[in-house]
């Protein structure tokens, strides 16, 4: 008896071997960017880059230098070397309260009731908060339109999810200090509100991987929020009330880069975003990089 022969169509083989979209594990991407676009700064209006739009005209006015005064930008200096493309989004954060550059806005063609957002983010090495890290809004989902959802650092020790003004806090040991310590950052001291010294971490200057999952509630009690940083689940909520009845139809847009309180660095410092992706079909995960080409060898070796 002859054994059956199975023929695998060529296009199936090709699909398995060739992944044209090195953005992550999910194939349900609603939108993504590697910022592989023309250099841009916010003085030029909207960028010509993957449908991104300028939102807000702020700059780091308090301590801006000439370059920083141009505000938000797309530049190779903000590129995540482990990601795609060759550029990233540079956001500026200055001292004090809400002294920052503008944002870039991602608009969805239709409202979405469940999304995953993945992004890489790096604070310039040595970035400090003083006297404390009150908040830093990393994304701003549906600005000024309910239901507003804001994931951010909430103090040195925790993450927070702010929904229409209601905070949901992560457990201790999940926030800024933990993430920067994992990158080998150095420590510094601040004097807290009670006049006592506290030890915290400056930025490690490295890109970290962030991903959130938001799912609209049906009755004010069953909304979902999950937050992974560097592949580890840091916060999970299953009883979020995402707000008004009008909001329950879904989210229409989000901002990359927002406001904060209180950096203390005597100048604006860079906060870089890159490899941002939105999925409607599940967890995205890290950039899958198919690069197999090594650099050329270092040259002119010498020894003394």
């Amino acid at each position, binding site marked *: 008896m002859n054994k059956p022969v199975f023929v695998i169509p060529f296009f199936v083989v090709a699909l398995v071997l060739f992944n044209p979209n090195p953005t992550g594990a999910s194939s349900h991407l609603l939108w993504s960017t590697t910022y592989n676009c023309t250099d841009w700064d916010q003085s030029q209006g909207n960028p010509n880059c993957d449908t991104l739009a300028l939102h807000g005209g702020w700059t780091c006015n308090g301590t801006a230098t000439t370059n920083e005064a141009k505000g938000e930008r797309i530049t190779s200096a903000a*590129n995540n070397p482990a990601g795609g493309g060759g550029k990233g989004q540079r956001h500026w954060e200055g001292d004090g309260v809400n002294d920052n550059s503008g944002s870039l806005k991602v608009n969805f063609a239709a409202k979405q009731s469940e999304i995953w957002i993945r992004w890489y983010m790096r604070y310039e090495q040595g970035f400090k908060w003083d006297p404390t890290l009150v908040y830093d809004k990393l994304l701003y989902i549906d600005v000024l339109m309910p239901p507003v959802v804001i994931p951010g650092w909430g103090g040195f020790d925790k993450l927070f999810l702010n929904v229409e003004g209601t905070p949901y806090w992560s457990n201790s040991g999940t926030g800024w200090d933990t993430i920067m310590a994992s990158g080998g950052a150095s420590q510094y001291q601040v004097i807290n509100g009670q006049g006592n010294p506290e030890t915290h971490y400056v930025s490690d200057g490295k890109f970290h991987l962030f991903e959130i999952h938001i799912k609209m509630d049906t009755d004010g009690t069953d909304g979902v929020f999950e937050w992974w940083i560097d592949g580890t689940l840091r916060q999970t909520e299953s009883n979020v009330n995402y707000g008004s009845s009008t909001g329950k139809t879904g989210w229409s847009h989000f901002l990359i880069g927002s406001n904060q309180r209180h950096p203390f660095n005597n100048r604006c410092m860079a906060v870089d975003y890159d490899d941002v992706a939105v999925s409607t079909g599940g967890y995205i995960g890290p950039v899958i990089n198919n690069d197999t080409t090594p*650099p050329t*060898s270092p040259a002119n070796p010498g020894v003394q």
Partner: protein
Amino acid sequence: MSHCRQQFKNPFFIVITLLWLSACGGGNGNGTVNTGGSPASDSAVLSWDGPTTNADVTGTKLNDLAGYRVYMSTMPGGYTASDMIADVPAANSYGGGTESYTATSLSPGTYYFVVTAYDASGNESGYTQPEVSKTII
């Protein structure tokens, strides 16, 4: 080096201690990123120029350089992973510029060195050529 921080009340020992402290500056383990100055007699200061392109046919511009690996052996050629003595982070992801590393606390003998570059995906270049060596007396 904790012995560099000893305190003495006798003035004679204070002078000796100051001289000793001046000799202790910069003491550090088995290897450092070189910050200049003459190398110690038991050290080897390596230098190299960072690559700026990928090893593909068209020599595309490098934009994901992650670092350098320094290999050391007492025999020329034939380096293995166990010969790697240092992982030096790249100054930037585009390469270029001169990088350096100092191997310290070397016993007398001849040491051979090569360096590779690697990118963010873990792809590693070939060894620097020519192989360089230093004899510690």
